[in-house]
């Protein structure tokens, strides 16, 4: 296995279009993007601009119409365990209990029953589903399904975590708890994270780098480093949010998302 | 694609009526036929009935077995039909007799060497040698009847001394080749096939007939139909008689017709004639056959079938005589 620090993500001249009824519908225009290992990249943009498409290309679920997507120098040829994916619509297995869903990744990799039970317990605890481990996914609420998915991906300890609006269906409190847990993990393990969100605040608060995409066909119209999630700045969240730099970046991001010029 | 087309691309030369056609017959007759090499298929192939009764409507119904023909009678699907003597006996006995009111009006053939017992092991020369062996036969057929009769006569009990299993003729060569069966009582083309692959004939239906248990392929008709259509039956019997004579006098021509209907080689068809005895109308009308003895044959068969299942009770000889009608044969024989 390639060492974690070689897992640089590169989009080179990526365009993508879907074919709908014979006509090509452009979704991504021209993406050139390098994500260094260990970056926490947050991605925002208007609904339907191509965020999910970009994430799925990197996940290896589709092949770009043009250009190349590479991880660690190798072109992406399909999904792989080093790239974990939290789907926009919870994708759990109804034939497995919540616990077994979370244990699935370690189990596939041949981790011993004891170890994977421990891992699963840890992450189930983290996302607040310890009491629901025997439920089936369809017996969970929408937000709980999303959390279960997050636990499943994290329990598999992928080098690159791709998250598509993971906290979208969570209440503020749960969301904040999971945000800090995620930051904790990121800081501790140095994983690369690509995090799609509609919340500008979330993007700025979490990201070590904030990207904004233009409306469809998506291009990256803003690419800013952010420092607020950095382990160095151990300040309470409230105080961070009050920082003028923070407010300024939020405004910049909000402006970029709303910019009507962005329509190519 | 419509059904009922004749087999010929070019009509055979003699599809005219060999005698003066009877234009007065206007009935509709539905005739069940089977793929057996006798006069019936010659009549069918050459279109004799159609030619001799130009105003009648003839519908040919192909039946897979005599049992089926009996059922067709039961639901009034046919007026005439060919079957073996076993189904004819069943049809004339309780309980079926209540549902299918038929009479035997013709003997298409007396089964002789056409159905015979072929053994695989050349060292077995008579039926008693089959003790402990497996014999295949199509159940409920005339061959089945002959086999059981022969076994009984030899003092063997089916199921105990000899294993008798049900097998359709077309499956027999396979079982034979795999040494699954030691003998089979069967007809052509399977019979020839088994003979060719080293089988020996040790008994045939001719032998059982000699022992007083003859088997036949007979022509039957619904009794209601007979009553209502005497002219038709006369013409029909005439045609059958003509076909019998054709087989006897000009087997090559008759074989050609049989070959066309059965889809086989004329030479094979001609060979098959040898194993069957064909009776002219006057022979049929005699006391040896429809004129008397035949009812006894039915009665005897019934007594035997009672033991095998299939009928509930054996009627009196007179009961069986009611289901034999020599009238059509006599009307032709009288000519």
């Amino acid at each position, binding site marked *: 296995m390639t060492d974690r620090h070689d897992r640089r993500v590169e989009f080179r001249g990526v365009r993508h279009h879907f074919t709908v009824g014979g006509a090509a519908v452009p979704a991504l225009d021209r993406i050139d993007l390098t994500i260094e290992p260990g970056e926490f990249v947050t991605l925002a943009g208007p609904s339907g601009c191509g965020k999910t498409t970009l994430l799925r290309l990197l996940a290896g679920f589709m092949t770009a119409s043009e250009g190349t997507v590479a991880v660690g120098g190798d072109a992406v040829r399909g999904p792989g365990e080093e790239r974990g994916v939290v789907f926009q619509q919870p994708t759990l297995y109804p034939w497995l209990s919540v616990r077994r869903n979370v244990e699935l990744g370690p189990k596939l990799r041949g981790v011993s029953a004891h170890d994977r039970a421990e891992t699963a317990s840890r992450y189930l605890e983290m996302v607040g589903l310890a009491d629901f481990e025997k439920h089936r996914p369809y017996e969970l609420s929408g937000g709980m399904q999303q959390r279960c998915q997050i636990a499943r991906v994290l329990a598999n300890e992928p080098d690159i975590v791709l998250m598509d609006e993971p906290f979208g269906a969570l209440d503020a409190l749960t969301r904040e708890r999971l945000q800090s847990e995620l930051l904790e993990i990121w800081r501790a393990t140095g994983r690369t994270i690509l995090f799609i969100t509609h919340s500008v605040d979330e993007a700025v608060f979490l990201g070590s780098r904030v990207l904004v995409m233009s409306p469809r066909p998506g291009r990256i119209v803003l690419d800013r480093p952010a420092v607020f999630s950095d382990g160095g700045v151990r300040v309470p969240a409230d105080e961070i949010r009050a920082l003028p730099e923070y407010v300024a970046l939020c405004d910049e991001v909000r402006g970029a998302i709303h910019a009507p010029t962005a329509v190519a | 694609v419509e059904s009922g087309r004749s087999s010929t691309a070019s009509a055979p030369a003699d599809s005219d009526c060999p005698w003066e056609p009877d234009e007065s017959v206007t009935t509709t007759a539905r005739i069940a036929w089977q793929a057996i090499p006798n006069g019936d298929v010659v009549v069918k192939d050459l279109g004799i009935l159609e030619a001799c009764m130009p105003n009648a409507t003839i519908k040919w119904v192909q039946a897979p077995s005599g049992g089926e023909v009996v*059922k067709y009678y039961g639901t009034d699907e046919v007026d005439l039909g060919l079957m073996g003597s076993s189904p004819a006996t069943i049809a004339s006995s309780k309980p079926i007799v209540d549902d299918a009111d038929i009479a035997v009006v013709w003997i298409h053939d007396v089964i002789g060497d056409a159905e015979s017992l072929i053994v695989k092991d050349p060292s077995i020369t008579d039926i008693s040698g089959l003790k402990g062996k497996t014999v295949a036969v199509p159940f409920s057929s005339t061959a089945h009847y002959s086999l059981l009769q022969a076994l009984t006569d030899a003092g063997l009990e089916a199921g105990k001394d000899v294993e008798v299993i049900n097998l359709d003729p077309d499956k027999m060569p396979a079982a034979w080749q*795999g040494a699954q069966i030691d003998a089979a009582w069967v007809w052509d083309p399977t019979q020839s096939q088994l003979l060719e692959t080293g089988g020996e004939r040790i008994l045939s239906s001719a032998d059982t007939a000699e022992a007083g248990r003859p088997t036949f392929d007979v022509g039957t008709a619904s009794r209601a139909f007979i009553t209502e259509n005497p002219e038709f039956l006369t013409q029909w019997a005439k045609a059958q008689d003509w076909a019998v004579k054709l087989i006897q006098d000009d087997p090559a021509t008759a074989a050609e017709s049989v070959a066309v209907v059965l889809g086989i080689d004329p030479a094979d068809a001609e060979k098959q004639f040898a194993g069957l005895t064909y009776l002219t109308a006057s022979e049929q009308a005699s006391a040896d056959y429809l004129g008397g003895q035949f009812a006894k044959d039915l009665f005897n068969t019934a007594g035997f079938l009672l033991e095998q299942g299939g009928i509930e009770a054996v009627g009196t000889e007179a009961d069986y005589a009611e289901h034999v009608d020599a009238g059509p044969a006599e009307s032709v024989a009288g000519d």
Partner: protein
Amino acid sequence: MTQTVAAPAPEVAPSTPAAGPQDHRRERRRHRLKLLALHASTLLLLLSAWWFVTAMEWVSPLYLPPPGDVWDAFVRANTDHPVAAGSDRIVRGEQGYYLWEHLIASLQRIAIGVGAAIVVGIPLGLVMGTTWLGVVLEPYLNFLRSLPPLAYIGLLIVWFGIGDTSKVWLLFLAAFPPIAMATISGVHGVRQDQVNAVRSLGASRRQVLTAVVLPASTPDILTGIRVATGFAWTTVVAAEIANGIPGIGGLAYLAGNQLQTALVIACIVVIGIAAILLDLGLKSLEKVLVPWRGKA
């Protein structure tokens, strides 16, 4: 038959008014009783219709004997009885076996044939549904499943003899194409993202099949097995035409040849009831294995 009560059905109709949990249980017991009554009355209705039709002699007993005759044939086939009224030769059931022995013999063949069909059909379906092998093999599968048993029973006899082996093979060949097809169809219906998700968790090709594709296709596979078992029943007569005693299909065939319609119908009814019971078992298996149907 009360098992069918819990059959999951999309509530197309307005649901019943609100009720407490105790009410609920009582309601369900009442429901169950109602259904039992419904089943019983339907059956009774059918039987009397049958009786009436035969009593009025609308259908010849050659084809449809009255229920009484069929019952007599059934009893006769399950007892030692004289070969004919008045005869002192006592025979056992029919063709030397009781009817239930014939049934057991056929059930064994079906169990082996369908069992083998499941063991072969599911993996084959999985492979055919997911790899290029499917494209290559599909025409042959279709060829096979269109063949009339009559067409190949001769070859089976050559290869496997006239014993049970060829019969089991025939049942296998009848049962496995529906299972394979249902599996393929199930595989094609698996949500692509469910496959993507497990591949992102690091599943190998084999693991994708066992961990996702197989369980996701289970409902289709179970339907396939049910269809296949039904086919096996319809094929049991063809399988047992040649040397099929003991065997309920073989018995039905012989009885048919002897125009013993009452016995034929007794066999058919027994076959039908056995098939219904078997299918109920398969259906409750479905309820256990696929509780999520219609929910996710």
